């Protein structure tokens, strides 16, 4: 297998892009390309695309709304359509819902407060590219840091994504008022994951834990197996 090729998209106001790049370098290895929102094209032959956390475009209009319409996003949407794994964390999750790659929307936290702490998550499925390295029902600890993380979708959509095994992670405690405690959602094809918690911030003991590592390892293993 040739070297793993990943890309981290940076929007104006992204602030977790470097952490994401470090996680990709350390866990996935290979080449990590840094891509600017104004670029029209992605590097060739990507194995993985990450949309990082932050406050793209100052959260103008709605969190993720402007970033979802930035020049690079059409290339990300096309790549997702070809099956390239795409991970959106925090603001990246908001961008993916705004871009229509994932169902639902992220509303202001029910408690109105910015929530910044470690939270317990339950891994809802191990049958996905991103979660194969976990066991179903496993409880993991990953930090969150967001103001708009309250996942919303209408009841029919929630029933559908639950029925299709597309809830990847659920909060094991009350965090932000999310419908059915949903913390991470997959697209129908299973190659796009959006989640509010930050796995890239939990990859080595110095960060307080390494429960996020398995997500990145899963993607690498999945590609080797494919």
């Amino acid at each position, binding site marked *: 297998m040739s070297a793993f090729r990943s890309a981290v998209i940076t929007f104006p106001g992204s602030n977790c892009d470097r952490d994401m790049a470090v996680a990709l370098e350390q866990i996935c290895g290979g080449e990590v390309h840094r891509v600017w929102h104004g670029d029209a094209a992605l590097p060739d032959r990507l194995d993985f695309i990450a949309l990082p956390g932050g406050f793209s475009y100052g959260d103008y*209009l*709605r969190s993720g*709304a402007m970033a979802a*319409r930035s020049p690079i996003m059409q290339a990300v949407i096309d790549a997702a359509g070809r099956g390239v794994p795409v991970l959106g964390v925090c603001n990246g999750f908001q961008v993916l*819902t*705004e871009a229509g790659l994932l*169902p*639902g*929307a992220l*509303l*202001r*936290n*029910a*408690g*109105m407060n910015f929530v910044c702490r470690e939270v317990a998550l339950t891994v809802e499925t191990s049958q996905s590219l991103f979660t194969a390295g976990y066991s179903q029902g496993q409880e993991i600890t990953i930090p969150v840091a967001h103001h708009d993380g*309250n996942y*919303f*979708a*209408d009841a029919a959509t929630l029933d559908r994504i639950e029925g299709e095994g597309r809830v990847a992670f659920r909060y094991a405690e009350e965090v932000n*008022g999310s419908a059915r405690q949903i913390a991470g959602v997959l697209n129908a094809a299973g190659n796009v994951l959006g989640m509010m918690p930050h796995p890239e911030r939990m990859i080595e003991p110095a960060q307080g834990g390494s429960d996020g590592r398995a997500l990145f390892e899963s993607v690498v293993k999945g590609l080797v197996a494919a």
Partner: protein
Amino acid sequence: MKVRVIISLKNGVLDPQGRAIHHAIEGLGIHGVQDVRAGKVIELEVDASVTDADLETMCKQLLANTVIENYRIERMAAAETV
């Protein structure tokens, strides 16, 4: 011509901001308010080339997120603009 787009949260979508405003209103000593919903108003200055269909496109694809929000477009007559 001035166009006003009024964006509001759909019924059933939790509005914590509205709830906080409601709470603050009660802090003013006014207790007759039943509910508060916060939305936004976007005013556009458009020329005659912008069609109703263009406005719909703007609202559906950018100004509102129709998963959670409703929108209403008001084309304002010249007399209403200041």
